[in-house]
């Protein structure tokens, strides 16, 4: 599973939408997915757990789409130890 797919999966679990709810790189966190402040906390926590990263809360203040999350996480993940994410 790619980083993008995993992030979409985590997102769907948190906002509790069914499998037919579509989320893509262009989906906006607030307007399209309906992510509120508590969901954002859960999202960051789950991403930290899944990718074994430590995420600064402020990182999310400039992010508004799923694509931007994927970019940021991919960057942080590759900085870790150069391994590629494969699950």
């Amino acid at each position, binding site marked *: 599973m790619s980083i993008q797919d995993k992030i979409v999966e985590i997102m769907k679990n948190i906002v509790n939408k069914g499998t037919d709810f579509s989320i893509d790189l262009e989906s906006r966190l607030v307007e399209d997915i309906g992510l509120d402040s508590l969901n954002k*906390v859960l999202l960051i*926590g789950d991403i*930290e757990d899944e990718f074994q990263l430590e995420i600064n809360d402020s990182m999310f203040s400039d992010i508004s789409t799923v694509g931007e999350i994927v970019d940021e996480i991919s960057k942080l993940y590759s900085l870790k130890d150069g391994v590629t994410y494969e699950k």
Partner: protein
Amino acid sequence: MKNRVVITGIGPVSALGIGKKEFFSNLLDLKNISVPVKESFLKTYKLKSKFYVPTPAIDYSTYNFYSSLRRDTPENARLSLLAAHLALEDANFTVLDKNAAVIWGTGIVNLEVPIAAYQANITGTRFNRMTIPSTMTNAPAAWISIINGLHGDSYTINTACASSTYAIGEGFRKIRSGYADVVITGGVELLREDSGGIMRGFDVLTTLSKSNDGNPMPFSNARSGFLFNEGSACCLILENYESALRRNAHIYAEVSNYSANSDANNIIVMEPTGNYIKLLLEDLINSEKIDYYNAHGTGTILNDNIEAKVIQDLFGDKETQPYINSTKGILGHSIGASGAIEAAVCALSIDLSIIHGNRIYDPIDNLNLPLNTVSCEVKSAISTSFGFGGHNAGLLFKKIKY
């Protein structure tokens, strides 16, 4: 309105067994489950108590509620969810009443979460964002409602070692007065902590057993305190008798009375005359004949002295006393979960006509303490719990023909 209340499902989770069959079978065999304390417990303090009962290691992924758990669902909630799952499975509802209430008991919160948060905060390592929802005392009750989709009221009762006896008692009152038809009740305690600090907390109060073999022996003259059980849970399904009959449920026993009062004496020491315990029992029993008394029986010098005296005052000599045992002599003291576990033991004893023995030698004189497990009809049973702070509670169970 005075509805009758019955027990239709039982789900124990402990080192003695997961689920009623394994749990009760090991209990009847008086299985020894204590283990020596870990090396990590002894770094800065020499524990006087050398043995404890660990939290059972459980593979939750084999249970169907696992997929709805978050990675950070705290362990005390997981133990509680498993206990509730087992009890609900046992109760065998075709359709569970979604207005069922949840009344859960716990003595202390699961300290490993706030302890880890403190460590992360002072060392700058990763901080668990779910620290607060995983620490809050209501978490287990909330998780039970969430996972099972229950919309009845859901809350947690706290009265130290009497917590889950109080929880069951309140569940009994709720159904009896017509506020609910089904109550999911019981309790949990999870005091697991790698440095042994929590066990030390009990040890410095001189409440823990100093035995050389991990056998606490409540009601023995050689006793010296209780066996620390760091993690257990137990769930009972209470139901309105009429609804249980209508759906052909298996009924273990009726909960026919509940009584509670306070010693108002001291934050850890029981009131030495046992007067309030005696009043509680008189109120609970109301001149009924009692076949079986499942004692609070921690194994401390003080508790067992007082409890023995009250038993003798109330029931007379050995020959006229009910059979007496202490489940804590086999399982150890699981604090907030102990009341629910002991209520389950009473219900199972009534249902299966068997009373577990007491794994002791040199028993206190003039007490009807069977050393071996006894097969006999049990028409009525009592369970008592006395918590730090003087919280006393008792439940009366009766065999029911249905």
